[in-house]
Structure formats: C-alpha cells, structure tokens
C-alpha cells in the first residue's frame, strides 16, 4: 500500500546495542542481579525480555550457568486494558512467570514502545494480581512520547520524538523475521 511512508530509525545493530546497554543499566541500578525478574508485555515485549535475560546471564558473572528462562517471563495485560471495550474482543496472550512468582522480586516490565502509558498502567494492575514485588521498573526499546498518564521509563533504548499521526513499529526476529524500528507516516507529509 502506498498510503504510508516507512522511515527506518533503528536497525539490528542499534537494537542489539540498546539492549546491551539496558542490560548493563539494570545491573548497575540494581547493584547486581539479586532478585531481578524481567517480564515482557506481549507481544513484542516478551522476546525483548528474553533477550535482556540472555544478556544479563552473559555479562554478569554471578549468573554464570543460569538458564535465562529463570529470570524472564511474560505478563499479559489484555484483560486489564482500559480500551478493551473499544475494540473487538482480543485474545489474551500467555502470562508466564518462572517458579517462585513475583513476590519480593524486582520486576522489570519490558515493552517495545512506550507512548501513552496505558499499557504500563494495565501491566501494573495485572502484576498486582500475581503478587507483591519488592519494586517495579520499566524498560522500553523506544520512548516516543505522547504520555497520557504519569508514567516514565527507567531504561530507554532510544527516545524518538514523533508526531501523533505517525506510528512507531518495532519488528523483531522472533515475531517478524528481522529486527528494525520504523516510523510509519501517513502519505501527505507530517502533521502539524
């Protein structure tokens, strides 16, 4: 379709570097890996959480030999969304939490794009149904602004100022066949 123009803003190497940086930041901020649990928000937050988990294991000696899946999982927010009634019923995604649960862990919510903050709000609700973490942090690959709720990310791969008419799409190897971040602008140029 020619109705949208695609503008690539990150490629596979940039994504990889951003994730590596976030992994380091997580360890730094947490003073080590103690209690860290990365929960990705489906759909694309889940593989990102997995990749971050793999990086933690790779760079942190204290985690040597640990299976990354012990540190990572997914947290579905579908049924906690505030716009559930505005769309046809959507199928929930799996929520997978490693044995031990979320109680007293430092849960890092992982998502691909942070925008209005509504998904994160839903995630905080979903998380509280699972238990009581010691702390909750937020890591996102892209922060594109346009916040509608008082929410900010602790770790950001790339800040991407955009117009509200544009869409930011994150493509991942696991879900889309290759890694990229693109901005989709409606034909006819930028909005005001």
């Amino acid at each position: 379709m020619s109705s949208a123009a695609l503008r690539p803003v990150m490629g596979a190497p940039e994504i990889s570097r951003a994730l590596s940086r976030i992994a380091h930041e997580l360890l730094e901020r947490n003073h080590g890996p103690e209690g860290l649990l990365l929960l990705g928000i489906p759909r694309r937050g889940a593989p990102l959480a997995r990749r971050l988990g793999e990086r933690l294991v790779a760079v942190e000696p204290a985690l040597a030999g640990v299976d990354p899946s012990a540190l990572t999982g997914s947290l579905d927010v579908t049924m906690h969304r505030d716009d559930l009634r505005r769309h046809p019923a959507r199928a929930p995604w799996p929520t997978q939490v490693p044995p031990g649960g979320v109680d007293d862990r430092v849960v890092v919510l992982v998502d691909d794009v942070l925008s209005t903050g509504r998904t994160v709000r839903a995630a905080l609700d979903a998380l509280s149904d699972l238990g009581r973490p010691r702390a909750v942090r937020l890591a996102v690959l892209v922060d594109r602004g346009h916040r509608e709720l008082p929410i900010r990310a602790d770790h950001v791969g790339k800040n991407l100022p955009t117009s509200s008419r544009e869409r930011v799409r994150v493509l991942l190897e696991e879900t889309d066949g290759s890694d990229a971040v693109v901005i989709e602008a409606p034909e006819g140029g930028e909005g005001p």
Partner: protein
Amino acid sequence: MRHLLSAADLSREQAVHLLDVAEQMAATQQREIKKLPALRGRTVVNLFFEDSTRTRTSFEAAAKRLSADVITFSAKGSSVSKGESLKDTAMTLEAIGADAVVVRHSASGAPHRLATSGWIRAGVLNAGDGTHEHPTQALLDAFTLRRALRGGAGAGTGTDLAGARVVVVGDVLHSRVARSNVLLLHTLGARVTLVAPPTLLPVGVGAWPCEVATDLDAALAGSGGARPDAVMALRVQLERMDAAYFPSAREYSRRYGVDGRRLALLPDHAVLLHPGPMNRGLEISADAADGVRSRIVEQVANGVATRMAALYLMLAGEDAA
C-alpha cells in the same frame, strides 16, 4: 460473537480461537488471585428455567472470575414459575440492564427466541435448551479432548481435532449434548460415531455429519482398525424405559453401558467423557467413571475456563460486533 446459540454458529477458526482463549483462562485459574477485570461493569444474567446446579454454578463462577456483575434468575419460586411469559421475563432483564443472558430452558429454541425476537438487546448464551443444544458443553468437551490428545494444558493451542475419532453413546434422541458435540467436533475435524438403540436415535439423524451405529462393541473395535480416541457416554433417564425406548436398565447397560471391559478395547491413550450427572450402573460403570481414562472431573474444571472464554469473547469487545 454476538450470541452463542448453537455449536453450528462457530466456524473452525472461531472454535479453535475460543479454545485457545479458554487455555489462557485456564492458566489464570491456577493463580492465587483468579479474578480478572475483563468484564468489570458488565452484567451477566443467569436465567435458569430448568434446575441445573452444576451448569448454573459453572457459569456463575466464570462470570464472577471475569469481574462481571452476576444476577441469577431461577425459575423456581419466581414469577416465571407463576406463569410469567418468556417475553415479560426478558423485558425485565432488559430493564435491569443485562449485557448478556445465559439461558437454560426446557423448550428447544427458547434462547434462539430470546436472541431474535427483539425483546432484548443483550447477547444470549445458550446454556442448554430442551433437546436442542448445549454449545458450551460441547466446547468444554472439545477442550478436554484437545488437551487429552495433544499432550496436556496449552499443548494443543492453535490446533483443531483433525483425525480424532470419538464415539458418543447413549440417548441421542433427547440429548442436547450429543447435538452440540456432533456439530462442534465435526467442525473441528473429528470423526464422530453416534451409538444408541434405534429407539433413541432421531428420525433424520442420517443427515448429521457423523456416523451412526447401534452396536457399541463394534464401534469401539473401530472400522478398518481405527479405534476411537475417546468415548463419551450420555446420560440416560430411567423414565425413558416407561415410554418403551428400551426394555430394562439391565438390558440397556448390557448393550450400551460403558464399563471396564469395553474401555479395555480402546487404545492406551483413549479417554472417557461424560457430561454429568452420571447414572452409575446404567450408562457408565463405577470402575469406568473412576478409572484412569476418565476425564469427567477435568471436564467440570474445564467448564469454567471454557465459559469464561465464551463470556469474554461475547462481552469484552466493543458493543457493535
């Protein structure tokens, strides 16, 4: 999904989707906090013109776990039993502000009537109508079968029941469970064989998408060496005996009862289902009901997850479907 009146309302894709959602619902039911906020602010009315504690309880649990407001309207002792018409009851529910009506009625087609008469705007979910259908029972049976045949919880996600062979034995004539199962299992690609004495098969059953037999042992032995993967025993009411549908309970259970000997004819992986409540000693023996092949208790648990999925798909989305 605006209404769920018949298993025939579901395409293969819709049915698989519903079963997949049910898997997600089942997973949430393993958590300490089982309640989900999806139907907050929605009102589900359980309208039961016929006593059925198990089905009513199952729907009630399903709706409550999705945070819906649940109003139960039992015919017994209410205005319904005092001659109030289905229409007036429906209009009362409309006034209350029901978003969905789960209806159990002794008259075939009553849910259909509620959905199409213009009396109410709410979605209608058929929880068993006369001798017509019981679509959520078929869905929970399919869910149970998919888990049993595809390797447990979550393992069958995205798949149908293609190639599975299911024998359904019992009072097909009066069974809404049989009708819904034949339709749904066929939609999902399974091959169904109905087995019953000829008196308990409806005239016209030949047009159904299944095979029909009158010899249970032959059906269990399978055709061309293909033995069934599952057997579903249907409830048989003893009163049928008085209407000459069969001569005696003893003869019925000898010819059509599922027992340990008959289950031994099946391949190792095959399972036994029963929609309940059971008449032990008539259509099913105690050793069969309590044996390793039995998935009867699981069916009950799966009923809640499946009904959560059905209510979720009916009510969670936007109003105009």
